[in-house]
């Protein structure tokens, strides 16, 4: 069988101020028709460059300086402009990263789709319209006809990604390039998109190259996987082989950093300390675009001193709102939030005592905005020591060095500017800053989700170390259930501003479970070969301005009971082992899974 695509010693350079940067020193790959190949590596490893090089569209400064790309018998590197245009979108199609910005904001979805068959199959408008609509139906977009007339910003992230996939498949290409196909999507939505891609590639027998920073994603899509580091493919194997017997150290590190369900790390078995935080009936709403969004409703949570409590949920579920209310950046509307015996619910920072402010500190999600680009990274730590920490005999510089050492950074880094630091280093600085006042409670709001997998693992490690060594209570907020169940003592699962399920972390993995918890678990990609969970959620979270009257999860619930779920808020049921589940389905029935 001849190869569909043969890349030989591909060499790509980017022009830079001093000397050209070698992005790909010599990349080779063979792909058979219908074959799927996944490429995993951290940001900047050259995997996106490879996709763009195949399409001969490297952007400013990029240059292919050697090698060959032979596709369907034609060398793309010597192809003329007309031939390239026939290949692009016609024979090789790209599903771009972040469809929100990859779709034209001022052109209807329909017209953008219709361009493809009109360009490549030379069909008329009516025929193109029909094909575009069919393509939207194929990617299971609800109401394909209606979607044709809409603009990108009127669709949700998952819908935009489906549109991008439909656009790529319209011309029935022989090769599909997927650039981080699930980045920016919520876990349940991402799982559905991956299902769709798998199904489509089986239907159309399209060959596929998928790149991602997430090993689990490519493993889910591709039979063969390459691991890339600094422009080189350090390991290449069948997915199952790679998982079972990784050869390269880097692959081993990637696999080790990958959280797995049930593979809980040895837990601290924290001594049951006294209750530090007790939240009950907490509500918070905002006015957004002319409507009220109830970000938190009747929220409850208990945290014992020294424990790690996790809140899990998808974007917009209210987990960050709670973090901001707890930290005092915003005030709650109603409810109680007792911290070390005093109610903080209605009090923002201005109304809290200095000790109360120092006691609750926070690490933020985005490493790029967590530090002021105009100041050295040591500056906020020093300020925090001055404003929050108890007086100590040691000079400030020594205390700064001690904090930096605690987060495993050299003392000299305090004089660096944020742009000289990596994402992981920035988050460590943010942790040092938050720890300067010796807080009782540290909120980590998606603190590791923007980091590459291996870095993520070390930062999580650091947080657990702080929890153990300093006895700090940690509120770990994440969308990643697999990660959370492996490290937290207690977990709260949120959806649409409400708690769906809470209880000890181990309690989550086995029935009785809330249907949403079950769906979240099913969305975690299993290792290759393992049975695939069948639960998938319909649609996407409903408009937070118009939540359903009953259970928030009712519109997407696979075990939806009917009017009862739609109209009546569910009761909270307590399991024998201390879990709490808010669902209409009786516990024995939930236990059946």
């Amino acid at each position: 069988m001849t190869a569909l695509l043969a890349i030989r010693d591909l060499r790509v350079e980017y022009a830079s101020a001093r000397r050209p940067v070698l992005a790909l020193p010599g990349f080779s790959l063979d792909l058979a028709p219908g074959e799927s190949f996944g490429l995993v590596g951290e940001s900047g490893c050259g995997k996106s460059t490879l996709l763009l090089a195949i399409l001969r569209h490297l952007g400013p400064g990029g240059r292919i300086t050697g090698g060959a790309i032979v596709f369907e018998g034609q060398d793309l590197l010597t192809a003329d402009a007309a031939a390239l245009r026939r290949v692009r979108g016609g024979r090789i199609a790209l599903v771009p990263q972040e469809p929100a910005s990859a779709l034209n904001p001022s052109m209807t979805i329909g017209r953008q789709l219709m361009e493809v068959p009109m360009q490549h199959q030379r069909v008329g408008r009516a025929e193109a319209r029909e094909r575009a609509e069919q393509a939207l139906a194929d990617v299971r977009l609800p109401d394909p006809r209606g979607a044709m007339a809409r603009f990108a910003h009127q669709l949700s992230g998952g819908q935009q990604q489906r549109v991008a996939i439909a656009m790529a498949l319209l011309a029935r290409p022989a090769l599909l390039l997927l650039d981080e196909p699930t980045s920016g999507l919520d876990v349940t939505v991402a799982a559905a998109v991956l299902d769709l891609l798998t199904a489509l590639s089986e239907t159309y027998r399209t060959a596929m190259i998928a790149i991602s920073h997430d090993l689990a994603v490519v493993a889910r899509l591709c039979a063969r996987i390459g691991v890339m580091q600094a422009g080189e493919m350090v390991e290449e194997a069948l997915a199952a082989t790679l998982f079972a017997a990784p050869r390269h150290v880097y692959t081993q590190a990637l696999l080790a950093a990958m959280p797995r369900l049930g593979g809980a790390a040895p837990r601290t078995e924290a001594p049951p300390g006294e209750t530090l935080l007790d939240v009950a009936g907490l509500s918070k709403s905002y006015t957004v675009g002319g409507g009220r969004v109830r970000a938190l409703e009747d929220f409850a949570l208990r945290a014992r001193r020294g424990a790690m409590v996790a809140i899990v949920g998808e974007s917009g579920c209210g987990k960050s709102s709670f973090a901001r209310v707890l930290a005092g950046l915003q005030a709650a509307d109603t409810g109680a939030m007792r911290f070390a015996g005093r109610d903080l619910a209605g009090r923002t920072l201005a109304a809290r005592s200095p000790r109360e402010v120092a006691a609750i500190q926070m690490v933020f999600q985005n490493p790029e905005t967590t530090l002021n680009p105009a100041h050295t990274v040591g500056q906020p730590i020093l300020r925090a020591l001055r404003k929050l920490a108890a007086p100590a005999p040691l000079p400030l510089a020594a205390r700064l060095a001690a904090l930096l050492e605690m987060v495993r950074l050299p003392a000299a880094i305090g004089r660096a500017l944020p742009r000289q630091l990596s994402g992981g280093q920035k988050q460590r600085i943010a942790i040092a800053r938050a720890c300067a006042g010796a807080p009782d409670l540290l909120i980590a709001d998606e603190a590791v989700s923007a980091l590459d997998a291996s870095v993520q693992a070390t930062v999580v490690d650091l947080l657990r170390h702080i929890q153990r060594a300093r006895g700090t209570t940690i509120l770990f907020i994440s969308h990643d259930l697999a990660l959370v169940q492996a490290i937290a003592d207690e977990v709260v699962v949120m959806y649409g501003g409400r708690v769906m399920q809470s209880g000890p972390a181990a309690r989550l993995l086995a029935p009785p479970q809330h249907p949403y918890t079950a769906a979240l678990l099913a969305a975690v990609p299993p290792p290759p070969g393992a049975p695939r969970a069948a639960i998938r959620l319909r649609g996407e979270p409903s408009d937070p301005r118009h939540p359903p009257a009953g259970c928030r999860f009712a519109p997407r619930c696979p075990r939806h009971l009917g009017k009862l779920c739609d109209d009546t808020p569910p009761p909270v049921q307590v399991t024998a082992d201390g879990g709490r589940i808010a669902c209409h389905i009786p516990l024995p029935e939930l236990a059946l899974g």
Partner: protein
Amino acid sequence: MPAGSLLALLARRVASLGLTLLAASFLVFMLTQFSPANVARETLGAYALPEQVRALTRSLRLDDPILLRYARWGGVLLGLKADPLQDPRLGLHFTDPRGARYFGNFGYSTLFRAPVADVLWSRLANTALLGALALAVIVPLSLALGILAGLRPGGLLDRLISVSAIAMTSVPEFALGVILVAIFSVALRWLPGTSPLTTGAGWPLASQLVLPVAVLAIYDSGYVARMVRVAMIEVLGQPYIRTATLKGLSRRQVILRHALRNAMIMPFTVLMLQINWLIGGVVVTELVFAYPGFGRMLLQASLFGDVALIEAATLIALSIAILTQLLSDIGYWLLDPKARG
């Protein structure tokens, strides 16, 4: 429901712009009429006796609080009240063929010794002609220059256009006027150096418009072209342009179908704001060319202290500025689907 949201947007904008207009006109009223003695003196002229000034101040009730006087002035403007200056008992001999009470009564111009309404509208028409011609040059010129420069940033054409555009915006209107007159009317004798809009000196009317329009157009075109260039460069760097290219579209199709419309959103707002600049520009240009327009009238009124005329002229300038803001909101709504929600 796009139509409904446009109406809602319009209602909101009209209300807010109406308030802005009210506040701005009050500001001008305060500035020009703050000192009551001044108003009476300007009305009576330089040779009035102190007793006359005092008498007029009394009979016009100029000692009342400024808000009250502003309300009275508004009443006269809307035709709800008779203009007190036309009262024959004052002996000012101010008469208006339209009577003392009509909508749009801006009062009496002491500079031109005529009702403001007689002075204002014909000059405004002359200026509108000038402005319209200038816009007719600015829009195509700046779009063409900006797009051409933005297509290949850093290229030779871009460098050429960019530096020319900077040079164009570095020449004040009055300096440009002087330079153009020196070249085209003094040295070459191709065009008239003044534009009184009369044919007494033998120049056809059209020829009198060339230099004033050129002065107005050159400065603004440079400015707008730079905006268009920046917008074009920004849009061409967007991921959706890459999507279009990787669909197999030609560069021409990518630019015409995907880039242009998006690149027009920002410059469109800028272009509409240019009308505000043009109003300012005409003051200078009309002075340079002795053009019988609204801008020169405003300047003369300001220098003379003709409060009624200043008030009328600024109110109209503001209304035009605010109306164009409204137009630009509507245009933005039409151009950018995101604005429609």
